[in-house]
């Protein structure tokens, strides 16, 4: 935590003194306003951390930036292979017959824009619509900001007047839902105090989790249903 905080402070430092360094131009009231405004911009609860430097590379980067600040060398980025590789191809599906009511009512659902969808990621439901930001309750491995995920498990898909309910899932061929990875969010440090009875010793255990954030970029109802369905 301290390293990330120090880094953010180091990054902030050149930006903060600028308004204070030119007191002759600005009247005192404006300076005071600026001084009071600047701390407000810092949000201590939800921080955005660059996922690029992996934990193993952090010390190397900090030393290089401190020692050779005059020589502007781009830091070497070793691709650290993640343990988990996400699949980059769609999973195989066995085409199943669609209910005739679905076929007849699907154009009506598609004609009403602004669809909502209940997507399931690792079994957890998220009721979203296009443009929503989702903070996942875990740090997704093997993704970088800008990656596009295709979400293929949904239990409901609907508009203002129609809802397509899956049993348990909506057919994958009937919708297209995409999400863009926007970054990583860090929670405030949790402190857990471990204490045994009849013993004064207290142990503070710190933990700080990181979470992947997504933005739902597309929710589309597919109207061209394949003939075999």
């Amino acid at each position, binding site marked *: 935590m301290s390293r990330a905080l120090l880094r953010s402070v180091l990054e902030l430092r050149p930006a903060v003194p600028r308004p204070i360094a030119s007191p002759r131009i600005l009247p005192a009231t404006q300076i005071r306003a600026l001084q009071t405004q600047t701390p407000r911009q810092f949000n201590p609860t939800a921080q955005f951390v660059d996922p690029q430097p992996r934990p193993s590379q952090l010390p190397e980067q900090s030393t290089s930036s401190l020692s050779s600040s005059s020589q502007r060398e*781009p830091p070497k980025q070793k691709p650290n292979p993640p343990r988990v590789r996400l699949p*980059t191809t769609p999973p195989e599906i066995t085409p199943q017959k669609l209910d005739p009511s679905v076929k007849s009512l699907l154009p009506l659902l598609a004609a009403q824009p602004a669809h909502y969808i209940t997507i399931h990621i690792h079994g957890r439901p998220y009721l979203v619509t296009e443009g929503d930001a989702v903070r996942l309750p875990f740090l997704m491995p*093997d993704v970088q900001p800008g990656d*596009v995920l*295709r*979400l*293929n498990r949904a239990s409901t898909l609907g508009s203002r007047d129609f809802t397509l309910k899956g049993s348990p899932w909506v057919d994958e061929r009937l919708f297209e839902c995409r999400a*863009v990875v926007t970054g990583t969010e860090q929670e405030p440090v949790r402190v857990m105090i471990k204490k045994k009875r009849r013993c004064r010793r207290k142990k503070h255990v710190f933990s700080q989790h990181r979470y992947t954030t997504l933005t739902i970029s597309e929710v589309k109802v597919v109207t061209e249903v394949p003939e075999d369905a």
Partner: protein
Amino acid sequence: MSWFRITLHRSAIGLPERTRGVLAALGLRRRSQVVFHPVSPQFAGMIMKVKELVRVEEVARPLSRAEVKAERTPERGFWLERRGTGGLEAGKEGEKVGEL
């Protein structure tokens, strides 16, 4: 050849040593653990001894540990369609790295 799929549904805490011995012989240690045994009079008798504690199905083949775990794991629900090369955020990150 068919197999018994035996799941320990109720705990054996507080039960006689003989009953716990039968569960140990079946290989059941904790609740909702699943074991597979071939259908035979010996195993049928053991199941009868602990019939109040277990749930039994007859299946065609035994599943491996990984397969049993995969049954319980929910589906991932997504796949990586495109790597963010030259995307909005990725471009910004690249510029930052270059400035440093």
